[in-house]
């Protein structure tokens, strides 16, 4: 096997006899090469050879493997495991940790407890972040907003979310989601990849790997970033969150940019036409195929298919991003924000268009929910950006008949504390990270709608009924898409790795239609 072109460690180790060492040592070395030495080494070599053949072909080749070029993973993996209710999913990721206390988890009794300390018995041994660990008091900050009943189910939703409230009957609201992490990066990694440490594939990559593509002209997994709003505390999100980890990089999420061209360098430069581009790609692919023949690195195949995908996206993405044919009713539904690329409303509209075009998994990141202070000023701003768009997306999918086989998920990485971080005044307060309970919702294919699942205590601090861990949450999402979370595995580092990790997880039956 030839040296890899990128491998710089090509120097030959010099022989003992050429080294500048005393002649006596060289003689000793030569004498060591005895018959006994030879026989001993030969025995070991034979042993290793026997072991290699016993362990089978893959034993000494490392873990990097993937489906051969052009072989969709789904076909090999025998997926979906059972007939799915949803073919695709849209995940609205509320990065930063939305406040369940102010949006969903209605606790009218807290008003009477304004500025009283939350009982230690409720708080228990909960670890605190560095931001509130030094606080002398933990004064209860009741929500600044009132809640109203919505729909036939009479679900209470905050006045901050009137649009989403109006579709409460169509949602499965989960009040008992809970996580183990208390800081953004580990929590957001846990939600997306099932592990707090980087390096594992995210939900979208698992889906792309497991279910394969429905449209070869667009990526199977797409990520839409929402433009920053400078009023908010924007925790960064990074491509780690849509990384394919140890899976082939074909399954990583492909991002559309929030401003300017959705994909950079997508248009051919002047003087390069489609045919020239095609010829160039054919040549590059041929070279890559030769490299694959020689080195057998599956990432080479990933590279070939990514070049091909980019070529096809040169026509499919402009068509996708062309909103001129959207009827007036679309703009009436999503609101004026949707005309401006990069807004959450625009991304929701794009998510619907991606769903129509057979994209398996679309994840929209909306940052800015991390409100450690000034909640009463910033929360209405971000709710204003998100509320109508969520309503519009669900309504639009429903009226177009897409909600039957599309799963929609709304979730952040954790919730927020019922007590105030920093000063509590009648008009304002802050809220720290809270992992023990937070509210998420799902709707669409496979989900039992018009329900509220799980209950929290009267402080919105602990789950008292039907807890849903991040593992259970992800197992349920996979279930809706026809996947048994225990069976979608990938052997890496000696483990059958899976999204839900080694700790047992269960599909939340109460959430299923």
């Amino acid at each position, binding site marked *: 096997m030839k040296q890899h072109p990128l491998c710089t460690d090509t120097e030959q180790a010099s022989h003992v006899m050429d080294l500048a060492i005393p002649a006596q040592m060289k003689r000793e070395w030569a004498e060591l090469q005895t018959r006994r030495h030879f026989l001993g080494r030969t025995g070991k070599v034979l042993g290793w050879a026997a072991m290699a053949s016993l362990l089978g072909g893959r034993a000494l080749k490392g873990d990097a493997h993937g489906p051969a070029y052009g072989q969709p993973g789904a076909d090999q993996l025998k997926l*979906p495991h*059972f*007939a799915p209710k949803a073919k695709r999913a849209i995940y609205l990721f509320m990065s930063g940790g939305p406040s369940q206390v102010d949006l969903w988890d209605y606790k009218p009794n807290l008003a009477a407890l304004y500025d009283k300390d939350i009982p230690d018995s409720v708080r228990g041994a909960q670890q605190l972040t560095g931001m509130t660990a030094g606080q002398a008091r933990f004064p209860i900050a009741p929500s600044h907003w009132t809640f109203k009943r919505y729909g036939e189910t009479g679900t209470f939703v905050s006045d901050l979310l009137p649009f989403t*409230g109006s*579709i409460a009957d169509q949602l499965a609201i989960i009040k008992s989601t809970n996580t183990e992490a208390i800081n953004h990066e580990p929590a957001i990694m846990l939600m997306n990849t099932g592990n707090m440490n980087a390096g594992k594939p995210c939900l979208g990559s698992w889906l792309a790997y497991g279910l394969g593509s429905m449209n070869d002209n667009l990526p199977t997994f797409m990520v839409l970033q929402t433009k920053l709003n400078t009023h908010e505390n924007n925790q960064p999100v990074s491509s780690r969150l849509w990384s394919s980890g140890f899976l082939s990089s074909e399954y990583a999420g492909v991002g559309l940019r929030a401003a300017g061209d959705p994909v950079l360098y997508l248009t051919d430069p002047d003087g390069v036409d489609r045919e020239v581009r095609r010829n160039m790609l054919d040549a590059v692919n041929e070279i890559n195929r030769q490299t694959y023949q020689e080195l057998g690195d599956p990432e080479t195949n990933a590279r070939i298919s990514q070049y091909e995908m980019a070529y096809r996206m040169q026509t499919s993405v402009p068509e996708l991003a062309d909103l001129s044919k959207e009827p007036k009713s679309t703009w*009436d539904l999503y609101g004026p924000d949707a005309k401006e690329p990069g807004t959450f409303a625009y991304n929701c509209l794009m998510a619907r268009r991606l769903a129509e075009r*057979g994209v398996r998994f679309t994840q929209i990141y909306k940052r800015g929910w991390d409100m450690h202070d000034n909640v009463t000023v910033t929360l209405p701003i971000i709710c204003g950006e998100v509320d109508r768009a969520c309503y519009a997306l669900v309504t639009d999918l429903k009226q177009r*008949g897409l909600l039957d086989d599309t799963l929609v998920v709304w979730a952040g990485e954790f919730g927020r504390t019922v007590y105030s971080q920093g000063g509590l005044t009648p008009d304002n307060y802050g809220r720290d990270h809270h992992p023990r309970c937070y509210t998420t919702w799902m709707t669409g294919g496979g989900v039992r709608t018009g329900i509220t699942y799980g209950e929290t205590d009267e402080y919105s601090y602990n789950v008292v*009924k039907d807890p849903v861990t991040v593992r259970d949450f992800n197992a349920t999402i996979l279930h809706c898409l026809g996947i048994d979370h225990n069976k979608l595995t990938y052997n890496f580092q000696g483990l059958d790795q899976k999204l839900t990790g080694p700790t047992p997880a269960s599909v939340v039956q109460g959430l299923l239609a």
Partner: protein
Amino acid sequence: MFADRWLPKSKLTRMTWMAALALSLLLMLLPWIVRLDGKPHADWQQFLGRFHPLAVHLPIGLLLLVPLLELAGALRPALREAAGFVLGLAFAGCLGSLALGFLLAYGGGSVGTVVSRHMAGGIVLTIGAMLCLLARPWWAQKAVAHVYPALLICTLLAMFWTTHQGGTLTHGSNYLTQYMPDGLKRWSGLEQTPAAGSFYAKHINPILDSNCVACHGEGKVKGGLRLDSYALLMRGGQDGPVIVAGQPEKSVLLTRVTLPPDQKHFMPAEGKPPLKAEEIAWIQAWIQQGASPTATTLTGIAMREETAELPLQPVGDYSALMAEIRQMDQGQGPKLKQLSSKPEDGLILFTVDSSASFGDAQLAQFQKFAPYIVDAELGRTAVTNASFDTLKQFTHLRALHLEGTEITGEGLAKLAPLSQLTYINLSGTQVTAGAVAPLSAMKNLRHIYLYNTPAQPPPAAQPATKSAL
């Protein structure tokens, strides 16, 4: 002569009989000596008591062994000798289990008719075993022929009855019959278990489940009342039944949920949200009309019926076509993919890669796959009304996507034979109300999407709550 046989012969035997009589009396008075008051008592009692369900199986097994040994003893006398010993052990086991059972009931605060019956059964059974033990020597000596066999049979019958009561306590009253074939259930007259489609199962039980069972369920049994099954609901709590069939005004359950919410006895307690007016109306009507576990409809209560989705019908064997399906998968263009790993779930036809060039002619090429396709994704393709001639052969089709196509709806009636079609999407086409009318005759076709078509004007875009912002 007769008296001779019956009178105890020695002082020892007389003593034994006196002791037996005293023990029987004591056992019979036990329920009055140790009254079950429905309150939990010492933990150690519960700790020991919980071994009762384990310990009972020993005397049960031994008692069952006795008649077998006696019968087998006719052939091998040694076995009959063993029967006496086994019977003695069984009696000792009965006494032990009885004691543990009492600890369980008293310590754990269990009350109720089934508990009482189970307890009475246990006492009768123990006394029966003792009498058998005393009567057996006569029989063995062939002095009195029939008393022992009769006693043994009675004891065994008592045992079956008692163990059944015990099983009911542990597993619930419908444990045995839950999965009984329907025919057998009807034949045996056991239809009392709530049927899955009954009003109780579909509407009453879910209300109780989400509002009451947290405190009146398996985990917590406030006031001795459990509402997590029909039998328990009808049994009531420590103050008696809570449902009086036909008499809502006498049913405590209904009274308690309709009190003013600030009253002490109002349910659900502890500030939990009150039942909705609609739910109260259902409960009232259900009690009024007999609190039946099986009735599926109530007069005066109209429910939005959710009909179950048509289950997947297996398609035929298409393994001969697999090579072709795989070949399609390799290249660009339309593809057939399995709905799931089970081939019999059928195929999905995806055309989105090449939607602009996929027309009626291309669709016609899929004719040989027609009976295996369950989902045809033809949205935004170039198919026209002529496609219905091909599509009508897709006998197992469940979902048909035609959104954004040139379909005008003429010929939609040709789809009528597709008995499994549950979903059709005609959004963004030019279909008219008249053209889609034939679809309403298709029984399983429940999801018809006509958004943005002349058949359905676009709905109001804003929710009613817009003014709240």
